[in-house]
């Protein structure tokens, strides 16, 4: 059960300490992003001429085109899957339900790697065709097509998740009524089912759009020039970092538009969904002769989005082992990733707790502002935050620039919203009467905080911190930009190996990361269940 704020009202009444702590934390974490704005304003640069130059427009167009295409195809994959796994008598429904969610545990870096190492120059298919048929010419897999395919296959679960949720609660009565009135099945779908699903489709589609905007690894590996890649290239070319800043701000701007859209649709969805719970949930629809094509459809999607990445990784690992490749595992990189992520996961706990308390136990202008601010950073692409820290660090913290503390600071900025969400959810699940009854027993605020509230949310703290750990292991753009020279991690290993077409070396870290990400899916699932049942 979730307790809305008003039931907690009054507790820890007026706490200047909490206010100061949490606003300081949020300000410090938000500072680098603010600095980006300053950075874009260099006196000798004429910003409009940058924005309206042909290159910028091309990047903007590329980004929008990719987002549109990915969103569209992900919807086309997710809609039938959702319907098949929720409403019909498709064989092995539970099996498909689980498998079609698994792409969530494949980072786009690994999606890109498997795609390239399977189809690219020197990849599996390439060498096969070359060895057997001595073919020399190959279609180009880089650019739009590659990025579009990879991202669609990785992203469709976001739409699938949200549509499944709605379908599960949705009965048939309206559809049946329309059929009785003599409409054809297609008309019924178009006129009734689709409009009822629209809020959840758009909610998922917006997530996919955001994902595409902020994805760095896949588009960069596949060399399609969207904002994130262009920012990285500008930064690396380093002849004009202001241009990188301007591109970042443009990306922030279009991201903000999408977030506002998202908030707006979520508000609307609330009105749409009322009443659907009480509806009788209908029996499954027999597929009849469509059973085989439906089964094939699910198999193909799962084959490309789940089986292929795992098999490609395994292929390269086995090949590496057979060839006695010495560099198949670089333990140094594993350890580096492990420790950086561990420090982040531990440090983020004390940093987040004051803000979590402040935003869940108070409702003032400042607490709402702090909450909103921290969620905005959540949607900001990692590369933007990384770049802002590069500028900020180089200018104000030269001693820290390209050191581990700054990298960990970047991770904390990146994962703060995620941790905050996790802690807030735990805090809002604590029955407010527990704290209140302790007060009526005469206990002080400190005692209630340290002996009741914190112990009660301990599982939430652990789960949140574990999630941060696992997510930090997967982080690429900030690590590329901010890691000390020569500091290798799992993700930079994969990145370097893939760009150098040294696939054997990327395979083991990729497999490891996929396994770790499946763990984080498990943690999230467990956290959801526990929050529902615990109190």
């Amino acid at each position, binding site marked *: 059960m979730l307790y809305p704020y008003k039931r907690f009202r*009054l507790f820890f*009444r007026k706490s200047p300490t909490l206010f100061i702590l949490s606003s300081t934390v949020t300000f410090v974490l938000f500072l680098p992003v603010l600095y980006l704005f300053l950075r874009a304003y260099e006196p000798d640069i004429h910003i409009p001429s940058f924005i309206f130059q042909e290159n910028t427009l091309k990047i903007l167009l590329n980004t929008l085109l990719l987002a549109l295409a990915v969103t569209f195809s992900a919807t086309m994959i997710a809609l039938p899957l959702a319907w098949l796994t929720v409403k019909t008598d498709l064989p092995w429904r539970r099996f498909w339900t689980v498998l079609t969610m698994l792409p969530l545990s494949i980072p786009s870096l690994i999606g890109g790697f498997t795609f390239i190492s399977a189809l690219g120059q020197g990849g599996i298919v390439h060498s096969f065709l070359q060895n057997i048929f001595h073919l020399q010419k190959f279609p180009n897999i880089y650019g739009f097509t590659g990025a579009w395919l990879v991202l669609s296959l990785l992203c469709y679960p976001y739409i699938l998740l949200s549509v499944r949720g709605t379908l599960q609660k949705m009965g048939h009565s309206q559809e049946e009524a329309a059929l009785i009135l003599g409409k054809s099945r297609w008309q019924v779908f178009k006129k009734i089912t689709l409009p009822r699903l629209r809020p959840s489709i758009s909610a998922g589609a917006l997530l996919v759009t955001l994902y595409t905007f902020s994805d760095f690894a896949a588009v960069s590996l596949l060399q399609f020039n969207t904002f994130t890649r262009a920012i990285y290239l500008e930064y690396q070319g380093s002849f004009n970092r202001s241009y990188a800043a301007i591109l970042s701000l443009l990306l922030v701007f279009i991201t903000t538009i999408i977030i506002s859209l998202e908030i707006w649709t979520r508000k609307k969805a609330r009105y749409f969904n009322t009443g659907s719970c009480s509806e009788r949930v209908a029996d499954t629809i027999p597929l009849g002769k469509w059973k085989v094509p439906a089964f094939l459809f699910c198999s193909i999607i799962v084959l490309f989005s789940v089986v292929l990445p795992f098999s490609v990784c395994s292929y390269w690992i086995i090949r590496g082992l057979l060839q006695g490749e010495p560099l198949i595992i670089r333990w140094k990189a594993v350890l580096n990733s492990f420790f950086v992520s561990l420090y982040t996961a531990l440090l983020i706990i004390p940093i987040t707790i004051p803000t979590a308390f402040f935003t869940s136990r108070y409702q003032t202008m400042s607490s709402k502002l702090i909450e909103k601010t921290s969620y905005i950073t959540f949607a900001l692409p990692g590369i933007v935050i990384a770049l802002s820290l590069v500028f900020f660090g180089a200018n104000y913290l030269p001693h820290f620039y390209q050191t581990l503390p700054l990298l960990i600071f970047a991770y904390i900025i990146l994962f703060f919203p995620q941790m905050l969400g996790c802690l807030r959810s735990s805090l809002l699940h604590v*029955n407010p*009467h*527990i704290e*209140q*009854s*302790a*007060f*009526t*027993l*005469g*206990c*002080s*605020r400190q005692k209630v905080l340290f*002996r*009741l509230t914190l*112990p*009660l949310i301990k599982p939430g703290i652990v789960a949140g911190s574990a999630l941060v750990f696992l997510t930090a292991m997967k982080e690429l753009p900030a690590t590329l930009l901010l890691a000390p020279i020569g500091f290798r991690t799992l993700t930079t290993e994969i990145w370097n190996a893939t760009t150098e077409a040294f696939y054997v070396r990327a395979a083991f870290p990729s497999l490891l990361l996929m396994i770790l990400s499946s763990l984080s899916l498990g943690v999230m699932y467990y956290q959801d269940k526990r929050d529902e049942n*615990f*109190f």
Partner: protein
Amino acid sequence: MTIPLLTITNLTKIYSPQQTPAVKNACFTLNKGQILTLLGPSGCGKTTILRAIAGLEIPEKGFIAFDRKVLFNNKVFIPPEKRGIGMVFQDYALFPHLTVAQNIEFALSKDSKNVVKQQLELVGLTGVAHKYPAQLSGGQQQRVALARTLAVDPKLILFDEPFSNLDMSLREKMRWEIRQIIKHTSTTAIFVTHDQKEALSLSDRIIVMNSGEIIQSGTPRDIYQNPANLFVASFVGHSNILQGTIKAGGKSVNTSIGNFPCDHTHGKKPGENVLISVRPESLELDPNGIIRGILLSYFYKGDTIDAIIKVFSSEGNKKLRVHIHPEIEVSIGQWLGFSVLSRFVAVIDQEE
């Protein structure tokens, strides 16, 4: 004259300006050792009053004094942890990560370990000290909540619908036990309930509320025998409402179906048109009684027969609810006569 333990004056709580106030100008006092019950339908503001007393809500206006100290007025607000008022919540709010013993000693200072044992004995729970709340039954959890509150020895304990999570038989038992414990430890208590039977059997005094306002305050007997108005008459128990005129002498009321003797005329003068409430208990089966009607329907309830009779008169027929001793065999359509006991007849206010 003794000073009341708790004094509340003009207490008003407004949650949001668009809504009507949750509590409007509530005034009452409570003496030491008494058990008071706030009774009223759902949403009438009972919990709000309780939480304002505990310090869990800040009222918009009013005055609360407790044990010779001001807890709240337009300048003062004493926070809950400094009030010394205990509260037992409807969901018990036990600390789920602590054992029963740890729950009870949670708010105690280090050197009071044997209090835990005493309290567990008092509420009859010696065996479960080392269990966790989730391992206890509803009734046991409630006793732990009570023991935890009693352990800090508050001068006043507030109970918000403490029995509503228990099943019927346990409810009655716990009601009786808790009343015993409160009286035994000479604590003062305020209960909140919307169950009128509970209020009548538990309290020394009842305050009946409706939509944020106090309607009537009195002993259970007072409230039942002499409801102040239509709302109380129909909310607390069942009542037959009749229209009539007070007769000369002010000792009876004349209605279309007969003359009702009446002890309580609510300050009305003879000759005035009034409403009266006639409790089923005041109509006693009597073949020679002045009220005569035919039996329309009845329910056999074991301890009584709950029946509706139809009384004929020149100004329209009336249905009356009566109680018949369960020993008597009745059948529908039968003519029955009743005499009237004046103690359960009262003149009531016209408006709700």
